[in-house]
């Protein structure tokens, strides 16, 4: 539970403070970090992160991007 909290807060921290500084921007709405947050909440740390990772992998110039809600 503690780990989950730490993880979620670090993702929120990334979303709020680090991601504006990155050179890349997400092709999706909601963004990959928000998507991962939802996934972790829903499926737990392991599968949630896995699902988030899968989303990040999809987030490349060959995918259409756009509106892609969780589930």
């Amino acid at each position: 539970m503690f780990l989950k909290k730490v993880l979620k807060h670090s993702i929120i921290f990334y979303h709020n403070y680090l991601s504006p500084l990155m050179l890349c921007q997400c092709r999706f709405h909601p963004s990959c970090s928000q998507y991962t947050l939802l996934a972790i909440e829903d499926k737990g740390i392991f599968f949630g992160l896995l699902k988030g990772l899968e989303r990040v992998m999809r987030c490349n110039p060959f995918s259409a991007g756009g509106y892609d809600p969780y589930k």
Partner: protein
Amino acid sequence: MEKRVILAVTLSIIVILVYPMILAKINPNLASPIQKSQVVEKQVVVENNIDIETKEAEFVNVLPSDAVTKNISTDKYDLDITNIGGSVSRILIKDSKRKSGITLVTKAVRSAGILSIDGKGLLSGMSSQVFQIHNDTQTFSLENNELKLEKSISFLKDKYGLDAIIKITNKTTISQDLSFDITAGSNISKNELYETRYIELDIHYKDGTVKKLTGNKLLVYNRLYKNDIDWIAFKNKYYTIIAKPGFDSKGIFTKDVAGEPALGFIVEDDKIIAGETRVYKINFYIGPMEIKELEKLEFGFTKVLNFGFLTSISLILLSILQFFYSFLHNYGVSILLLTLCINLFLYPLTFKSLRSMQKLQELQPHMEKIRQENKDNPAKLNKEIMELYRRYKVNPMGGCLPMILQMPVFIALYNTLGRSVELKNAPFLWIKDLSMPDAFFPLGFNIPLLGNAINLLPILMIGAMILQQKISQSATGSSQSEQQKLIANIMPVMFGFIFYSLPSGLVLYWLTSTVVTSSMQFLIYRHR
């Protein structure tokens, strides 16, 4: 919204400021290189060596006045052999590619001298006995009523290698147990700033496992009993002493001799019958950690190379760089070509995202319409815009995959530039050393964060990034929000800060990469 950006910038600056302080706290050795030399000057060091019987004035760091040293000079080495203990007390490596020479081992005397032997029974006190140095050969020997001890070294031609042979003859009438330590490395130089953290002993076992000892672990008296040792490497940042025993060593010892680590092989309970001669052979590689040189010895010594957790990528990058270097003879140009290669590899991704950025302009009327309709609902506006992108199969954002793909390459290149001896002192244009900031205009004083010189490359890089932004802004039309614009303006400066003190080779990579991408952008937009 703007507050967020300002906060992010402040946080980053704090991180940049605080990180060196934390680093200095963790490893105080780094912060005070002067203190180190004071330790070396200390004359006597208390030893808790219980195992070995000899305990005379043994660990004094100066030789008695009757000590004789013989100097041997070959095409690769200049070394001294000392008669007290019969060992190699100084090794200078002739490294014509970088400097005329680097003294790798200095003032290693008595039990710290390389090839010095200390043991029980027959071999007790051998590290302070007087050996006879034979003038015509590289042999030094000692003979008394009980034994004959002969050590000889031979140099390998055109390689940074030497073979050592130690012969022990039992002259008594009974069989004896041979138990002794042979020193294989000590007093390795750490001339460069921050080099202490690179001092390391790697023990490679025959089963492929590797044990690494660093820092204070090298300075305690320690006997690691585990046989099947393939070879050991004692190294600083760029140079190494590798020793491969030709006998069954029972383990490795480390100890502190006058503030410097000394280490070597343990031989225990080797039976030697009356009149028998035992031969112990050690293959040494003593030289720079350069792939081509290490390969010459054909013992698999290239495993000594360690560029951090991405070593395999680093080695690929290094071999590409060396390939270009082999016919261009300049690592700066090699880095330029490497950058082109990586960009070519990522070209499909870049092209795709640039194309869609361009197509976006055609959608401007639709965008305006949606924007008018959803003025009061930003969440819905975002969703609608994303839907629009999807419908027309356009998306201005590159997504993170190209970035993520480049990340490991970037980190690996950073490690390669910082750690590989090949790139040490490699010049390019006004840059003296690609592994250091370019120091275009040296200042006489220190500016906090930025060091004591004006670096030109990071400034050029900021310029290139601003230019790139201008090009992409003009292409997409000013559809950016105020926040995005602010980020866009801060980004290059932030990057400039981060890159300012990094190796100039790395900045060169990023600069070239930026220039290449923006030229591609420019060309694609012109040809619409």
